[in-house]
């Protein structure tokens, strides 16, 4: 989870133009749909998952995002799949 949180923070930092140290749980203001979209696209590419737009609209903090990404990773193909080497390569 910590790993995912770090990766999501990094993504948010890129989207918001902040360094990961400057990111706070509420850095991403609600209803900033452009930034949400950019973050969603980046998360989908990074984690190889599909995020549902109705859920994204509900996410308020970086922790919410990380938790949601974790949940989506856990149900890939209906079962838990540990990250592949390819995934890890992408996270580097």
């Amino acid at each position, binding site marked *: 989870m*910590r*790993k995912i949180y*770090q990766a999501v923070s990094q993504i948010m930092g890129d989207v918001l133009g902040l360094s990961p140290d400057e990111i706070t749980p509420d850095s991403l203001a609600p*209803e900033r*749909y*452009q930034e*949400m*979209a*950019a973050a*969603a*696209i980046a998360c989908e590419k990074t984690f190889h998952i599909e995020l*549902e*737009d*109705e*859920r*994204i*609209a*509900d996410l308020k903090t970086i922790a919410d995002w990380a938790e949601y990404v974790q949940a989506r990773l856990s149900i890939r193909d209906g079962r838990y799949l*540990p*990250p592949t080497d390819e995934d*890890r390569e992408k*996270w*580097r």
Partner: protein
Amino acid sequence: MEEKETLIQLEERQHFDAIMALIAKRLEAAKQESEAQLRGLQDTRRDEFTERSEPMLKNLWAAHRFEDLVHLSQEFQNAAEEEKDHESTLQRISSLQKAQSTPYFARIDLTFDEDDTEMIYIGRRSLWDDEKENLLIYDWRAPLASVFYRFGTGKAYYQAPAGRIDCALTLKRQFEIASGRLIGFFDADTVIQDSFLRRLLAQNASSQMKAIVETIQRDQDAAIRDENHDLLMVQGAAGSGKTSIAMHRVAYLMYEGLKSPLKAHHILILSPNTVFEKYISSVLPELGESRVDTITMEQMLEELLESPVQSRLDRWEEESALPENMKAQREKRRALLSSPAFSGLLDRFAAWLPAHLPCADLSYGGRVVMSREEIRSTARDPGSRFPLAVRLRQLEDALWERVHALRKARLDELRMLAFRLGHGEEYARGVSIWESGVLAKEAKKVTRINALSLYRELLARPEVLFTLGRGVFSREELCLLTARRPDPYLPLPLEDAAAAAYLKLRLTFGHGFGDKRQVVVDEAQDYTPMDYAVLNLLFPKARFTVVGDIHQSLEQKADESLYACISDTLRRKNPVLLTLNKSFRCTREILEFSLRFLPGQAIECLNRSGSEPKILPLSELTNEIEACRAAGYESVALIAKTRSDAEAWQARLPREWNVKLMGRSARLGSVFLAPLPLCKGLEFDAALILDCDRAHYGRQEDRKLLYVACTRALHRLALFTGEDESPLLQKEAPHA
């Protein structure tokens, strides 16, 4: 004869010494085992965490070794198991230390055949002899131990797992053992000898309830060991040991010798308040069992409704300050909301709701994906076995499945649009998120049921209330319900909270209490029919133990019909009502005095004598407190009617008396002020009842309050009056 007694004494002494030596040996071994485990645990921690896990943790992110995480989790698991073993050894040590103080308290000799007599020693926990492979001490909960509680010498029997076993009880001996010393013993023909019981009861009250395994009475034992009834109700006079029975019953149900013993998490105790919770909290550990969950009705309702609920004490406080006419109105409203008729109205409301849910078509990308008719018809589905809230959540899932099928095409449309407007992918996705968010909000308005809002809405819509309540409630009653709606900015009144929780449970299911298999309700007379209806829905699979006293209800009228109502509401198999009419708490004089407030009631009393209760002028308060202190009483309660009265008294009393106010977290001890509702279920060495004047105790309904207050006293009771003495104090007080 004397020589024979000496021989018996010698035998018992030798037996006691042998048992104590064995316990000491076991204790020593357990301590050594514990030390070895502790050393092992420290080594494991050092090896695993310092040498292996720490570098692993450091490198975890850098190396991206997921396998390391798995390995680390295994290391943690091993350490956790070692820790569990150590905890179990510590528990054994604690149990042996307790056994060292009082290894057993009774002996019974049972003859099964003419030549086969067994000596059975009974204690709080069993002791196994490894060498001879037999039990040296039987746990008081063992089936065989029931003979001690239920029979005098002569023919006896007990229910073993294999069935009834007949035997003859040839000897019944009770021991006085304290702090590891055998003080004495005596043989008794009767069930539990009264003089022994009187001596125990003459001791001072403690700030925490004590276990009573040594003195359980025959009828109490029957209640404790009952396994045949899914609803066991005990109506017991003040001081009859109702709460003790409930606690010992919990310990009994957790006894590992039973066919299917309960675990601590299977049991829930519903207690009247947190002071009481604290008071009973030491009984189970004293009996060698883990604590079980304890909750008050207010806490349970708050958890269910996720909203603050007014406490019983706050309600008592508020209503005590109201003028009579308003108080009467409140009581009427409370009785209406708590009645089975109102739960019936809520049932009709739950059935009415699906057809009247406010809803509109749900659209995505300009297309209707779920029509208002479809929503209504699914909500109304009479064939569904799911409650409304679940059906609506299923509907929401179906909605998103349809949206997912459309999403790709919709995103393409949005991309085209964005492209035409000179924007990119992110713009299109942003619009999609916005659109989905709007739809999610609209959908939730329909599919997420908020029972509390619906309940408030019901009271705010007279036309609905009148339609559903027609023929059951009068117009005046319905007006009363709608006119006095709960203030949304204040904690929800208890009766409204119970009704809203009932509605919620009718519309949904699954509330985190599903694993409870035994629910113990204490002070049963203070719960309303609606409270029991909530318990019935909340614990569908649980058995119930309900203990109370209809003469001790503070707020509502309770009579013999209470138990029929509980039985009808909880609808459990084989309900049974046991009555305990013997009081063990007060002296004969205190009980006789207290009974003047319950004309026509007869309560048996253990013949323990003490000083006569007094009605004194206020000027005598100082002398009385001094007398209590001189008598060495450890708990002297100054009982006021309400918390604000108690606070006022605290300000009036000399500071050097150091009189504390009993609150939600206050410890009992020395001299303290207590509001009456918090005293329920507790006992004190002396009870000094304040403000016994017409203003505080002038109504006929206040008789029960005085009865409750007076019966808190173990040894000494005084009532303090002002200028206008309460008419209820007169011996021949007129009553309705």
